[in-house]
């Protein structure tokens, strides 16, 4: 099966800035790495990881040096006789190696506390973009309550601004993780968690569910697309005024197929009679980069593959296999869905 982030940039993706694409091609390898932070939250976390690491490395070097010296210096040699001095202890030494770790840990714990409280702060208010993230088996729903937008698989945020997240789950535990932007926070059914993140610059930051959530856990991915504030505003504008009218004859046929197969009982398409809530909201599907928990590239071909054989890509997904759908119906359906703007 094809994976996302394939670099075949296509003209359809005009909704995403060219800059994003460039950033993507430049560092796709590190896009999901906690070692290449792209925002203040992940930067702060990396700072603490590093601080802890250097302290630990220091201790490790001491231990290994003492160990190595002992092994070489005090190894048994031919002709050794008698016993070495039977030293049973040394209170001063023992107190020393109790106190020194305490001091080192005290050094570590101060910034730890500070960062723990700082990262737990919340900001509400009209000026802060609020996103409600809902984990589903196996896709992510992103709601923008202030903006009246519901989307899936990709979260658009303005770069350089703090974004406040509320995390929920529709079924089991999931964990929301965009390594380059922020550490993870679990989505717990029956509970709302909060976190915030910020992308310092526009770019595409892949994320993934980090808490085991069932058979296709490994396919539960998503992208965070950070855009310049103006591009973000344009995206919001487009999403608030979705164009759901089929433009071609084939697309008109596709809309009928969509209705005929009952797709609308699970999926919502804004501005139509399709208002199902089980699966992802499909409004503006044509502008998205990926499909199906970001496990597929958004191409008409992959879309048809997904509709006809979803369980091959994502075993046990709620999405049924429409394997009996005729080829022409499939093509019509993909034309309709890819035409949603």
């Amino acid at each position, binding site marked *: 099966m094809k994976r996302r982030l394939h670099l075949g940039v296509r003209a359809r993706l005009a909704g995403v800035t060219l800059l994003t694409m460039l950033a993507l091609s430049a560092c796709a390898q590190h896009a999901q790495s906690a070692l290449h932070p792209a925002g203040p939250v992940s930067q702060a976390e990396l700072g603490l990881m590093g601080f802890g690491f250097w302290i630990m490395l220091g201790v490790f070097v001491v231990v290994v040096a003492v160990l190595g010296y002992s092994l070489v210096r005090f190894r048994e040699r031919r002709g050794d*006789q*008698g*016993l*070495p*001095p*039977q030293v049973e202890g040394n209170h001063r030494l023992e107190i020393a190696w109790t106190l020194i770790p305490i001091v080192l840990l005290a050094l570590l714990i101060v910034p730890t506390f500070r960062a723990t409280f700082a990262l737990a702060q919340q900001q509400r208010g009209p000026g802060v973009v609020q996103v409600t993230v809902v984990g589903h088996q196996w896709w992510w729903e992103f709601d923008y309550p202030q903006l009246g937008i519901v989307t899936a698989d990709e979260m658009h945020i303005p770069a350089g601004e703090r974004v406040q997240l509320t995390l929920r789950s529709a079924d089991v535990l999931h964990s929301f993780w965009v390594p380059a932007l922020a550490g993870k926070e679990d989505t717990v059914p029956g509970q709302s968690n909060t976190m915030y993140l910020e992308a310092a610059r526009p770019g595409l930051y892949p994320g993934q569910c980090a808490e085991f959530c069932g058979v296709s856990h490994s396919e539960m991915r998503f992208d965070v697309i950070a855009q310049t504030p103006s591009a973000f505003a344009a995206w919001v504008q487009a999403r608030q005024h979705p164009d759901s009218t089929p433009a071609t004859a084939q697309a008109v046929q596709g809309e009928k197929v969509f209705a005929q197969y009952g797709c609308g009982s699970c999926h919502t398409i804004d501005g139509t009679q399709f208002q199902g809530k089980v699966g992802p909201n499909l409004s503006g599907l044509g502008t998205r980069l990926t499909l199906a928990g970001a496990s597929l590239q958004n191409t008409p071909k992959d879309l048809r593959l997904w509709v006809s054989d979803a369980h091959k890509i994502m075993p046990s997904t709620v999405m049924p296999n429409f394997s009996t759908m005729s080829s022409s119906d499939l093509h019509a359906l993909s034309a309709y869905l890819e035409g949603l703007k």
Partner: protein
Amino acid sequence: MSAPEVRTLEATPVGPYRLPTPAENTKLGIWVWLASDCALFAALIATYVSMHGHVGHAPTPQQLFDLPLTATATFVLLLSSLTMGLGLEAAQHGEHQRLMRWLVVTMILGLAFVGLQAVEFTTYVHRGLTPDASNFGASFFTLVGFHGLHVTFGVAWLLSIFIFVVRKGPLGPRDLWRLEAASLYWYFVDVVWVVIFTVVYLLGKVS
């Protein structure tokens, strides 16, 4: 390599050695087990206190709990502790008949407690509190039922001692630990009940 310092080997002053008796081992074993059982009930009580707020559409504790019934059950169990103690004392004095009488009384009291609990449970179920009706129901039946199982097991244990005595004759000093072990368990079940009726019934009625 310097020579090791010369020392004389002296044991800590010890008297003549004897192995621990089964009584000593068993009593310690029982105590360790009871300590572990504390953790068991602690986990159940933790579950109860964090779950009992969810009553759903089922009756609430305040609506259900019947203090006179609980008080009766409590006194029955309390009394059984006393009779257990009197039985143990009789055994220690070698008064075989008295021991057997107290054993029977204790078992009857234990069964009466379990019976009262069965009555209580059926009443609640009839009034709409089933284990799957609400999490108050689930955690209540689990916690109190678990204690009931402990009492039932205690009765079975006492019965086994009763049968042992019937078959092997009066409990001699060498077998007294069997009764002692069972009595520790019996008292412990009563101790746990004190905690349960306070946390579940009394506090449940209050708050």
